[in-house]
């Protein structure tokens, strides 16, 4: 989207269209001639995978809506109707339910990739913040979707999470009543969650377009973290290079996804959600879906309810400030040995929080969750700002081509595949 366009309309019709709506040019510049750093590894394929998953969720979701009934006495039965009577209904539903989990697997890998390679640093701050917004919208969508089958976990999960808003001083209770559309989680709650669950994915799609736009303005980061200096030496054209690599990665991801859909479709869910919602019976142990568990652990780690809610939301909001919290000029952890160690500690802490979120709270788990929660915030608020000032990074390669040279040890074929079109960006 930046730089010269290399698109040449090949016939009368495409010339005619190009002068009126250069949409083919847009697609060509974005997905064919677009220069991508040649040293990208497979962690850069998750953006494409995420786009695929968004489309998959929307397509399966739209068909599910044709058979689903958003009414509290009929919702559970309509999901069973989908599973039993609708042609390939079981497939649609398992694709959709497991698709949500796969979406989060991909987004977490995508985000940790960004953390590792410093992809949030200038000039990619807006790109990163748009990503954080997508993540928030995904969390909201997944939460509301999980309510729709109206099982015990749907109901009680909705109850626990919406009740959090009652912690807000003064207006809290009114806000909760307003969210519920009554004095408890009931049919009006289900109806509005259904409406929003339908809407939000399209908002996500909108923000994804902005996200990709921002990406195409600033260009992709890469494992070396140094910017593109020479388009001919440092980049290759999106097609066929990135398309084949992304295509291969997507297929591998689909195999992983299929394993869950076809062989263990209920593993990521909770058995209690096959019990119809019952306001009078509280499940022994209310747990959210796995992808919220680290945040749920943070929520429970704080002794006060309001404090917990604030901590939980700040844990996500904090990410938006990352470009300014990290003071290091060097992007990639490859050249920041100390940061690299802290990165892995953060990964372990996040996994640990996820585990703790799944456990019934006891003195032991709460104690560890408090340490991990403190560490999570310390990582972003103390370690990252200070590390940039004190850490001595390794020597950076002068260019991407240089970095590849150092890795492969041969100059062979360098510059040979300079298929990317000349570009003003650098």
């Amino acid at each position, binding site marked *: 989207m930046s730089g010269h366009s290399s698109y040449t309309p090949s016939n009368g019709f495409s010339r005619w269209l190009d002068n009126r709506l250069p949409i083919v040019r847009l697609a060509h510049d974005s997905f064919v001639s677009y220069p991508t750093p040649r040293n990208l590894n497979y962690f850069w394929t998750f953006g494409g995978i995420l786009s695929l998953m968004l489309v998959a969720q929307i397509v399966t979701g739209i068909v599910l809506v044709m058979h689903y009934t958003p009414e509290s006495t009929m919702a559970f039965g309509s999901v069973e109707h989908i599973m039993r009577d609708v042609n390939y209904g079981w*497939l649609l539903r398992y694709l959709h339910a497991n698709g949500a989990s796969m979406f989060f697997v991909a987004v977490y890998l995508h985000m940790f990739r960004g953390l590792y390679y410093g992809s949030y640093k200038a000039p990619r701050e807006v790109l990163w913040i748009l990503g954080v917004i997508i993540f928030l919208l995904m969390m909201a969508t997944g939460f509301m979707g999980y309510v729709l089958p109206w099982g015990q976990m749907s109901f009680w999960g909705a109850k626990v999470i919406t009740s959090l808003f009652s912690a807000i001083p003064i207006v809290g209770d009114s806000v909760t009543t307003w969210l519920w559309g009554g004095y408890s989680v009931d049919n009006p709650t289900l109806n509005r969650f259904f409406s929003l669950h339908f809407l939000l994915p399209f908002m996500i799609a909108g923000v994804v377009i902005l996200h990709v736009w921002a990406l195409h303005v600033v260009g992709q980061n890469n494992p070396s973290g140094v910017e593109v200096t020479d388009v001919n030496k440092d980049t290759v054209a999106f097609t066929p290079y990135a398309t084949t690599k992304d295509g291969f990665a997507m*297929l591998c991801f689909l195999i992983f996804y299929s394993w869950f859909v076809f*062989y263990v479709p209920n593993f990521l869910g909770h058995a209690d959600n*096959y019990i119809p919602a019952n306001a009078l019976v509280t499940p022994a142990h209310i747990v959210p879906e796995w992808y919220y568990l680290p945040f749920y652990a943070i929520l429970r780690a704080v002794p006060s309810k309001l404090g917990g809610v604030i901590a939980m939301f700040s844990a996500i909001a904090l990410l938006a400030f990352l470009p300014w919290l990290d003071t290091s000029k060097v992007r990639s952890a490859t050249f920041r040995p100390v940061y690299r160690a802290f990165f892995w500690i953060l990964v*372990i802490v996040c996994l640990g929080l996820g585990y703790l979120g799944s456990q019934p709270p006891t003195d032991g788990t709460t104690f560890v969750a408090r340490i991990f929660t403190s560490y999570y915030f310390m990582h972003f608020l103390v370690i990252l700002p200070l590390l940039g000032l004190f850490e001595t990074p390794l020597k950076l390669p002068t260019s991407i081509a240089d970095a590849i040279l150092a890795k492969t040890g041969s100059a062979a074929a360098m510059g040979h595949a300079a298929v990317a079109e000349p570009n003003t960006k650098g």
Partner: protein
Amino acid sequence: MLKIKIALFAGFVAVAGALSPATAQEAHHNLVPEKQNWSFSGPFGTYDHAQLQRGYRVFREVCSNCHSMKFMAFRNLADKGGPEFSESQVKALAAEYKIKDGPNDAGEMYERAGRASDYFPWTFANPEAAKAANGGALPPDMSVLAKARSFHRCDWFPCDVSNALLDVVTQYQEHGPDYIVGLLNGYATPPAGEEIAPGLNYNLVMPGNKIAMAKPLSDGQVDYTDGTPKTAVQYSRDVAAFLMWAAEPKLEERKKTGFRAMVFLILFATLMWFVKRRVWADVAH
């Protein structure tokens, strides 16, 4: 780097230590149900249709006296990948029931013989009646019961995590039927000193060890005509298999479709990998 690794390991040990007392407090001396051999487990699993037919018999003669199964219609008993009763058998099975229908042209409700298209009727008029007949406890609907129960083989770190990962890799999804078999055979005399309120029964598998349902199965209770042993254990396995089918009637179709999808995706991915390698062959990266 070594120092960091040692520190990480020490941290891990400390965390595991802090988590383990949690389990000691939590323990409700529950027996972990045994893993059964199911014909429908694994990537190529299919239901044993004769077993489902026997399981239906047990359900029909014993469980359905208290439990409903409202998402199941008689016609489903003839579905492919189910008990696969013949059409005429299904008709006969449905006709054993009286179904309340109506209103007719005169505005009156009437009773008629069941048809294949009818859903399984319930003995009780409503949940209140069911509760009243069962000492205040509601027998849960059985349509998805086999997916609505699960258990953990251990609840201490890291055994729980490794078991979960193992379940995904080995495709162990039969927690529900294993639980049901365990529950049905888990009745025992309470240990000395344990008070059991009237109307409750001691069960090793039920969470909390107390269950309102009296032991429903005993040897010889249901007549089998195919020579299968008429024991309570055999009944429990057959009825659990039947309940799994009721909860997941498309299991066979799912696993068959899954195999085709996997073969297709793996071939396609392999092909793509070669294409990708060719494309990148002359580019250092």
